[in-house]
């Protein structure tokens, strides 16, 4: 018998998320904006509260019991998150405030040491600003060149001329999954080609890690960033994994306490990994909270999470196109196997802001925005899209609610005809 993962028990999962009990405008909350930020299960809140209520202290160096305990819990969370993404060693996992900071860390520390005028950084046309602006800043500062990988009619990266594109490239930066199109990119294939031509690979996995079983070694990448608040974790914590040799050769980024072994009035020595890149008091409770989020997800099983989302995405694509026909235009791959549960669309020419506003009246949360991907918006020829995105706590009823509310939105703005 083939090992098919059983489906998630979404009804039970919904009960784990207190916010899903909230009433909005007199109805239930239908949260379809997890690509912006996920909701948090009670377990994550409980663990953070427990730390603050029973064993909170600043970490590292404290000799007393609650400081030892807080440190042990934070480092245990580091080990857990590292294992969760298949990292060979916890000391290769650096914490900061969000993935944006982590990509900036790479641009500042690795980039300023290794990129010089004329060096090329290859990005994709579906990057989030977090993986564009740091490189634009380096371009302004030292004249590196940015090059772009476009995508085809099914919103998949066009790799036909990848080898030429890689010429002169020192770093490839790509998102493992687009936060607008939902496209799951062929990270391994690109990483192999990049390495063959001598480039390193930075992956923005903000949308990938929350939804897919992850193994950085199998992906074969060099830098790998993701963010806690999209992963059922609290705000205020981001993660960067990188190979130890790379991190060891890089100069520190932020300077301050925790990241040194010695400071004199005329110089300092940075300390060992991971703390070398963690200046100042880390987000202690947040890291521990992220560890609890990982526990929760592992309890569900990441294969099941992916399978659930693939099925629900298939259901959504089918339902929305069957019901709304040409009225809805979905920007993203057709095959649910090629994509995650992020569905960008435009509806009957109604502006995304207006769509989202009317959906809100029905308790439905979708994002109407450029989704921090303006180059992509220009490439698509739109100013903004509506985006519905799913996670473990969503089910077919949520999709049906969206579909009904879209029909209502059409009536509201355009009058009574459904198409």
């Amino acid at each position, binding site marked *: 018998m083939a090992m098919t993962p059983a489906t998630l028990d979404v009804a039970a999962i919904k009960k784990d998320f207190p916010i899903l009990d909230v009433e*909005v*405008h007199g109805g239930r909350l239908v949260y379809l904006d997890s690509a912006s930020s996920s909701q948090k299960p009670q377990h994550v809140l409980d663990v953070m509260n427990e730390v603050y209520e029973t064993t909170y202290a600043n970490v590292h160096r404290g000799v007393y019991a609650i400081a030892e305990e807080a440190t042990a819990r934070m480092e245990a969370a580091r080990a857990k998150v590292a294992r969760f993404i298949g990292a060979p060693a916890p000391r290769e996992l650096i914490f900061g405030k969000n993935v944006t900071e982590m990509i900036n860390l790479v641009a500042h520390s690795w980039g300023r040491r290794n990129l010089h005028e004329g060096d090329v950084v290859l990005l994709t046309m579906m990057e989030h600003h977090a993986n564009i602006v740091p490189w634009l800043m380096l371009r302004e500062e030292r004249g590196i060149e940015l090059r772009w990988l476009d995508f085809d009619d099914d919103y998949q990266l066009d790799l036909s001329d990848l080898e030429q594109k890689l010429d002169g490239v020192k770093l490839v930066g790509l998102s493992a999954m687009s936060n607008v199109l939902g496209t799951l990119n062929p990270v391994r294939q690109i990483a192999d080609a990049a390495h063959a031509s001598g480039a390193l690979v930075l992956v923005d996995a903000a949308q990938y890690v929350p939804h897919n079983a992850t193994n950085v070694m199998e992906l074969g990448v060099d830098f790998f960033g993701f963010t806690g608040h999209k992963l059922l974790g609290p705000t205020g914590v981001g993660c960067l994994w990188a190979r130890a040799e790379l991190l060891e050769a890089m100069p520190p980024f932020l300077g301050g306490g925790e990241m040194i072994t010695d400071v004199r009035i005329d110089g300092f020595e940075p300390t060992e990994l991971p703390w070398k890149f963690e200046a100042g008091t880390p987000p202690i409770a947040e890291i521990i909270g992220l560890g609890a989020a990982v526990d929760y997800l592992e309890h569900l099983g990441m294969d099941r999470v992916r399978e659930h989302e693939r099925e629900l995405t298939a259901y959504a694509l089918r339902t929305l196109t069957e019901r709304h026909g040409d009225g809805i235009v979905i920007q993203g791959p057709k095959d649910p196997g090629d994509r995650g549960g992020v569905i960008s669309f435009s509806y009957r020419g109604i*502006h*995304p*802001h*207006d769509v989202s*506003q*009317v959906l809100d*009246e029905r308790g439905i949360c979708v994002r*109407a*925005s*450029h989704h921090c991907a*303006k180059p992509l*918006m220009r490439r698509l020829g*739109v*100013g*903004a899209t509506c985006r519905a995105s799913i996670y473990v706590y969503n089910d077919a009823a949520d999709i049906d609610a969206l579909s009904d509310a879209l029909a209502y939105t059409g009536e*509201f*703005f355009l009058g009574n005809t459904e198409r």
Partner: protein
Amino acid sequence: MPGLEDLYREIILDHYRNPRNRGELAAPPAQRVEGYNPLCGDEIVVYLLVSDGEVNDVKITGQGCSISQSSASMMSAAVKGKTVDEARALIRAFKGMMSIHESRLEGEGDDAADQLLEEVKLGDLEALQGVVKFPVRIKCATLSWNTLAQGLDQAASA
């Protein structure tokens, strides 16, 4: 919690579905000014014919959400035929009505704005007051007004 009816008053939807003063004017003699809301991608072009201190004609093109488009339409109807001074007073009053959130961030009091609101009659435009309850949408409502202000400056220095 504010509801849809606070935002999409009938008169707003009417201006959205049937925008007034849609079109272009030859520039010159008219002023042509572009406005752009980077948050949502809304674009607006205001054409403005000013002579003898009076706004003789206004035309609007562009695209965007119902709030930005209806606000532009209402704006065009409100300032057409007014003196430049009256138009400027209207801009100040309208932005006063809208800027409660923004001015707080600046740390300024709202007294001046409140006073202006009492002096200038906004008429139909008051239908947009509900937007204030939806802070994200304020920039949609003020886009055409900021563009108008730029146009008046441009006309003054032309």
